[in-house]
């Protein structure tokens, strides 16, 4: 031990490390704050993160190096905060990149306000990640924020925007799910699923080997995963309601042909597509064939089969309820399912090489675009790529015109 470090040398150094890491991060936030943000929400998010970091620095200064175990935890918290926030800072920085379709921010923000609440914030960014829109989940420090990321190569593609509604749905779930009074029903559904699948439950009890706690553990695990599945179903319902058939087409575009490993926090692929197509029929949303053809179901690990049987049975009890909640919520807040008459009008305008004007939603614009792409067999041939690009421009211009007209009407 060096004489300069005095007593508790490890704590002293660890506390100093925590302080340096937090202050360096604070500095980074301040540098980002000087960026030009196309929309103010990103700047506000930075402010909230900054407040949190400042609070941690204050707390650290109130601790004493003699509290060794506590210093370790304070360091762990600082370290985890930096780990957690670093990609968010990157996300916020990339939201300023001109490759993003800034035009879609306004209609998506309106959707966010409709489903989350008047204080909803939205940050759209492009990502260097091959799976679309993987920045979704609501962040504890930014509860009113929906962070919607798309792969950089799709950032300017309006046809990809329908899946953004799914992400906004996650923020809406956090705000509204308590009012659905779902937990009580879900516990009932979990118990019913456990009772109805006695042999699977018995096998799991043996597998867990925790004696009298095994059944409560199974209930806990089923409950937790079922709730996450129901959240995904809710988010799909939000996307379907607001974007109509274009949500289905965008899913096909991003996720076909299925067949990946089964995740416990999603319904199986086949069940998910069934819920979507049934939901579309219930909302009167028409869609063109082919859709979801030759789609392979997700494959569960054999060791999880018993658990998944119980889990899926519990989710099946409540899937329709959750979809109805999403539908009622959006309807009560004035959102509209894409109107086929308006979609047809948009298709005619785009076919004529003109953007559509008037009262039209992003969902209707996206659906019209998809209808043309699908009608033309995908528009991928070299001779048609120009048309594909022009269609994207027409859609973006239509979003702009719709926004302009809406603002004029409100002025």
């Amino acid at each position, binding site marked *: 031990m060096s004489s300069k470090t005095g007593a508790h040398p490890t704590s002293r150094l660890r506390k100093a490390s925590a302080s340096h890491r937090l202050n360096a991060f604070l500095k980074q936030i301040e540098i980002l704050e000087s960026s030009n943000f196309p929309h103010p929400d990103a700047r506000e998010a930075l402010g909230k993160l900054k407040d949190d970091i400042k609070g941690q620095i204050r*707390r650290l200064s109130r601790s004493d190096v003699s509290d060794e175990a506590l210093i370790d*935890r304070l360091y762990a918290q600082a370290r*985890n905060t930096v780990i957690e926030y670093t990609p*968010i800072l990157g996300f916020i920085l990339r939201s300023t990149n001109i490759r993003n379709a800034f035009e879609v921010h306004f209609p998506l923000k309106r959707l966010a306000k409709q489903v989350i609440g008047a204080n909803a914030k939205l940050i759209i960014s492009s990502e260097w990640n091959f799976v679309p829109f993987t920045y979704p989940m609501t962040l504890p420090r930014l509860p009113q924020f929906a962070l919607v990321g798309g792969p950089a190569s799709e950032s300017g593609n309006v046809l990809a925007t329908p899946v953004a509604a*799914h992400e906004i749905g996650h923020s809406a779930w956090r705000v509204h799910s308590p009012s659905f009074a779902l937990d*009580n029903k879900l516990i009932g559904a979990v118990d019913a699923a456990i009772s109805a699948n006695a042999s699977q439950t018995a096998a799991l009890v043996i597998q867990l080997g925790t004696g009298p*706690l095994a059944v409560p553990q199974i*209930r*806990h695990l089923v409950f937790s995963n079922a709730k996450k599945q129901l959240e995904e179903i809710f*988010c799909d319902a939000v996307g379907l309601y607001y974007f109509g058939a274009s949500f289905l087409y965008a899913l096909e575009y991003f996720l076909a042909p299925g067949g990946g490993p089964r995740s416990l926090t999603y319904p199986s692929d086949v069940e998910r597509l069934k819920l979507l197509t049934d939901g579309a029929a219930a909302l009167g949303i028409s869609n063109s064939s082919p859709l979801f053809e030759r789609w392979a179901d997700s494959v569960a690990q054999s060791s999880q089969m018993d658990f998944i049987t119980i889990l899926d049975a519990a989710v099946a009890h409540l899937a329709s309820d959750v979809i109805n909640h999403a539908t009622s919520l959006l309807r009560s807040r004035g959102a509209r399912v894409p109107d086929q008459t308006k979609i047809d009008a948009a298709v005619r305008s785009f076919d004529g090489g003109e953007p559509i004007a008037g009262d039209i939603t992003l969902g209707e614009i996206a659906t019209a675009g998809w209808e043309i792409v699908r009608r033309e067999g995908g528009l991928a041939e070299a001779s048609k790529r120009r048309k594909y690009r022009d269609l994207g421009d027409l859609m973006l211009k239509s979003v702009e015109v719709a926004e302009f007209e809406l603002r004029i009407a409100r002025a």
Partner: protein
Amino acid sequence: MANLAVVGPALSKLELCDLLLDAAVELERSRSNRKFSRKPVERLASALSYASRPFDAAPQVGLIDPTFYDSFERLFRVQKTDTLESIDQLQAFVGEVVNELRSAEDGDVSSDAAKKVVDFCIGLHQELTREIEAESRFVIEDWRTSDIQASQGLG
């Protein structure tokens, strides 16, 4: 540091982590006769009462809020010598700490009792942190370490 106006349905693991550290720092200050704030202690008592409540949905079965069940269970196994046989034991375990926190709020807690609470805070923070780290917090999939397809599904 954490400013949780209302402890309720939105309480997350991360928020509880902050509350645990806020309270532990202040309790350590009280133990060493430094000026300390009671507010974080009060907030933690309220948060722990919420987190360990018989789950709203099914009080008849005594299921603890699933968000915190695993952490409480692991901490119980680390800090108690009893065999864990029922959920009631977990609730009693957390309930003891809540009572000590309430006493501390009133300035009526011995140094030993405060130390016990600090140890609980540190232990629970460690368990929660471990869980947060195990969950993918921001990026759902990691192509370097996990199967690619399992995470596909739009967030």
